[in-house]
């Protein structure tokens, strides 16, 4: 199974280093506005959520692309944009339910996370390890384990 970006939102500290790592990797400048990953920050609730392309199994953006510019690389498990084919029609933007693909106004070409070809730069700069690049197989079970650990306490109380 190919590796994927696996998030642990509880570890994200809202430092936005991922946005800087991404923007300088692809645009040669520090510019969160051009980053393919963004951290959404809810200060009152103390919730910080990094978001980028989830590499859907059945990608809406690829289906919507009339130019056939978005294809899947199964070795890396990544959807990527062939900029030779992309016509900048924005259909992928409309199709993506998460806002994780966008046409760069400067180039007129769609951009999305391509996992940096297997060495994601955002992961390298994520000190709290809120974003990891790994085989995601165990991830749902990890989550269940963490939630049940919290539930354990309340079950104990109910039993009493």
């Amino acid at each position, binding site marked *: 199974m190919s590796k994927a970006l696996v998030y642990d939102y509880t570890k994200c*500290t809202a*430092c936005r*280093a991922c946005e*800087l790592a991404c923007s*300088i990797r692809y645009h040669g400048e*520090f*510019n969160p*506005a051009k980053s393919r990953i963004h951290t959404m920050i809810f200060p009152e609730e103390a919730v910080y959520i990094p978001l980028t392309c989830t590499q859907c199994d059945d990608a809406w953006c690829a289906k919507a692309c009339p130019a056939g510019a978005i294809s899947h690389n199964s070795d890396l498990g990544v959807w990527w944009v062939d900029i030779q084919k992309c016509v900048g029609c924005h259909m992928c933007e409309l199709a993506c339910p998460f806002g994780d693909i966008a046409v760069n106004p400067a180039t007129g070409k769609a951009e999305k996370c391509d996992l940096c070809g297997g060495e994601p730069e955002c992961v390298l*700069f994520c000190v*709290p390890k809120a974003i990891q690049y790994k085989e995601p197989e165990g991830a749902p079970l990890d989550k269940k384990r963490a939630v049940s650990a919290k539930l354990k306490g309340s079950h104990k109380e109910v039993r009493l």
Partner: protein
Amino acid sequence: MAGWTGKILRINLTKHSWAVEDLNPDLAREFIGGRGLGTKILYDEIDPKVDALSPKNKLILATGPLTGTFASAAGRYMAITKSPLTGAIACSNSGGYFGPELKFAGYDLILFEGKAEKPVYLWVYNDRVEIRPADHLWGKTTHETEDLIRAETDPEVKIASIGPAGEKLVRFACIVNDKGRAAGRSGVGAVMGFKNLKAVAVRGTLGLKVARGEEFRKASLMALEKIKASPVTSVGLPTYGTALLVNIINAAGLFPTRNFQTGVFPTADKTGGESIRANIEIRNKACFACPIACAPVTEIKNPKFKGSGEGPEYETTWSLGACCGIDNLDAITKSHYICNELGMDPITLGVTIAAAMEMYEKGYLSFKETGLALNFGNAEALVEITEKTGRREGFGDAVAEGSLRLTEKYGHPELFMGVKGQEFPAYDGRGAQGMGLQYATSNRGACHVRGYMISPEILGTPVKLDPFATKEKASWDIGFQNLTAVVDSTGICLFNTFAIGADEIHAFLVPATGIEYTKEEMLKAGERIWNLERMFNLKAGLTGMDDTLPKRILEEPLPEGGSKGQVVRLSEMLPEYYQLRGWDEHGVPTKEKLKELGLP
């Protein structure tokens, strides 16, 4: 230019006009940015003798060449102006996201001059600049102001604002950004309030370039490895926040208690980082690009002190805690939230309340004057006087002047615990001689972040020094002061220096700017900045006589604990400090020194 955007935004509030100017590359090279560059511009543009609260004073919000990059914790900006609290240079540092956003909008700094006729706020979206009316924001808290401006500008806007304290010219009002970060000390918020400038709102989508990307990236990754390897920056600060120091400093006997009457607070543990984490912390949070994430986000459920927000930090859990003899963490945190929302410096506030409490207990202040039972330890009174001070109501109007003016008003200036009109932070100089000297010589009055001698004297980083010895402390102080001036000018956070030093900062600065500074030239810039601040203060009317400490710190030995029997032996250190600085016996930089540094 690389690192710097090369642009300055000048706002004339009197004329309601603005202009974009080019940053002088020579000045940028000599003074780096942030604190250094801001001080240089202020020094060149105002007469240091002007009244801080007059239209002739200017306010500069300045970033550094590293601000907005992924150099470790590179999210800082500094507010530079003449202080209404001290009459000396004011230079207050803040994190969050505001500084980087200013860079992404295309500016290294914003300079405000004059005074608006009516309340206004500044709205900057890249090259679009508007001075907008702020009548509807006047009187609002900093949090409310952010919400209201966000609703009328852009969801991603970053905002620095003042609360009611800044509007009412509380002499230690601060500038708050990103709901909980503050350019805290010396009353920079009062200058903003005087100018009728309620807030600065910025949205930037322009890119920021460095000169040599790959080299810069490698330097950043290497620094991150050091941050991850240091127990302080990888475990201590993220887990317990800065307040992990409470028990350490208390054990060493220099945790100032009840207005510096002792250095031991028996129940300090109730207010420390461990207690914060166990009782009120939701989680920790980082500022921009910061791998440390030292800020505790907290919530108080106790209905009496209900609230939520960032903090308290070490300084505030002490100033509003031990310094006032209070160990009620809920009340301390509530008072801290009020400081953030009304926009005032909790260090000066806490020490001023402590001075009032000492006067109250000694009978120099009566209930008739205070309207509150200001006994040490009265947690309810703390919260009430915090609110009243931020709004200048009742006795709060007197507290709003700071402790020097308060103690003078009631005839007991000896109870002012500070230097040059600014209150001490949370370390008693009597327990760390180098820190004592640092307080006496700090350019913005008593301050812990001008040369953090606690690091070698108490914490043992980079090496352990005997805190009670005076030998060689002058030279240590100077080294720390100069390096700190560099750090504050580059735009990275001082807390980096628990894990990295001049070598790593130099490794950021050169590839970021493309300027081939040697490490010595970089540190020389720090010395230049320190001397320029000194020159500002001397021209403002301060003298070497102001490089002193309260009688209590010089003459009354600490009565108990780990630093029992100690006073600061300033006279053993100060002449050497002047000499090593290249200053004359009155503390005035010599002509030779100024020439060497290229200062006028």
